[in-house]
């Protein structure tokens, strides 16, 4: 028996949930009278039930962790922002340090003019301060953006910023000798200086 094609279409409309009342009536009547179509419809219903029954599957337990592990590295700024957000005290502290050291570090960048704190008993030639043989400089010497060659004696500390110090074999420094060529050294030097100055002002 050849049934009208539209009967099968009606069946599928039924499964799609958009069967109109007239269609429903037509399908019902046909199924009552046609065993082949009734069987067909029953099989479809069973098929759909099997499909729905088989639906439940869950991801393996470690799935989410594996995904997050396999993720591309996130932008650094995002990580930093989140970190700062979660650690407000650290943020305040790091802000303080950034401001304090930042200004110092940037003043390091300004390569100022050559200067020397002592001018008695020294010779200055091409950004090099020379303490001549036999001469004695009383007091500390600070050389900025230049070098120092010590052939005589310095009765105090010698500090060279952005430069080199050369000691002749006969040269003598009674105090400390320091070369500052790194930013952090420069910062440390400034902190010491400021601290000393602060102490002096208190005294």
């Amino acid at each position, binding site marked *: 028996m050849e049934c009208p094609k539209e009967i099968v279409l009606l069946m599928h409309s039924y499964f799609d949930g958009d069967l109109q009342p007239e269609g429903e009536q037509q399908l019902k009547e046909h199924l009552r009278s046609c065993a082949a179509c009734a069987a067909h419809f029953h099989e479809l219903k069973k098929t759909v039930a099997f*499909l729905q029954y*088989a639906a439940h*599957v869950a991801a393996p337990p470690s799935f989410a962790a594996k995904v997050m592990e396999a993720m591309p590295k*996130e932008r650094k700024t995002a990580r930093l922002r989140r970190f700062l957000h979660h650690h407000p005290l650290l943020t305040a502290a790091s802000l303080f340090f950034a401001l304090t050291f930042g200004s110092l570090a940037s003043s390091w960048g300004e390569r100022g003019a050559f200067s020397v704190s002592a001018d008695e008993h020294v010779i200055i030639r091409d950004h090099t301060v020379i303490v001549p043989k036999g001469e004695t400089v009383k007091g500390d010497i600070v050389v900025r953006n230049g070098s120092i060659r010590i052939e005589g004696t310095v009765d105090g500390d010698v500090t060279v910023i952005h430069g080199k110090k050369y000691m002749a074999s006969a040269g003598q420094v009674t105090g400390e000798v320091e070369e500052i060529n790194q930013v952090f050294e420069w910062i440390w030097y400034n902190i010491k200086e400021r601290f000393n100055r602060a102490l002096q002002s208190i005294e």
Partner: protein
Amino acid sequence: MYFMDLFIKKRIKAIQKGDQNAYADLVDLYKDKIYRLCYRMLGNRHEAEDAAQEAFIRAYIHIDTYNPEMKFSTWLYRIATNLTIDKLRKRKPDVYLDEEVGGTDGLTMQAQLPSRETSPEEAVESLELQETVQRAIEQLPEKYRSVIVLKYMEDLSLQEISEILGLPVGTVKTRLHRGREALRRQLGHL
């Protein structure tokens, strides 16, 4: 549902700003759905896990292209469906099975192949029934398989399926009909 949508929107905004942790919440929310889709499409747990993972990573990488007009789940489903279809195409060289056979109302050779003999007694066992259903789905050409899986495994509306696959609802319906008919030949006698 409103609360859920808001939650998802917030997560997506955070992810778009580069916050990877916000994505973990979305993975948790959708992992079962996406894994299930991949498993039903590919029929193999190992491959399904790889594909689902890849889908989530793709979604994360392309999060900037996500259009908030669309449901996030729809977008994820689209990525995962396309990915599994790609994998299926690469996997099987017997593409001819997907070709339409003349005069059979759009049914393919695949759908007309006799079902593997499974006696009803065997299929009564629930696990075996699961297996049988899965094997039957795997016999479907991919274009019917995707609509059947999205409709019956993921329980999505025809409208959502049409958005996921980028097809008119009418086409989705036609594919569903053919998919159901092909499955009926395999499962209807159980």
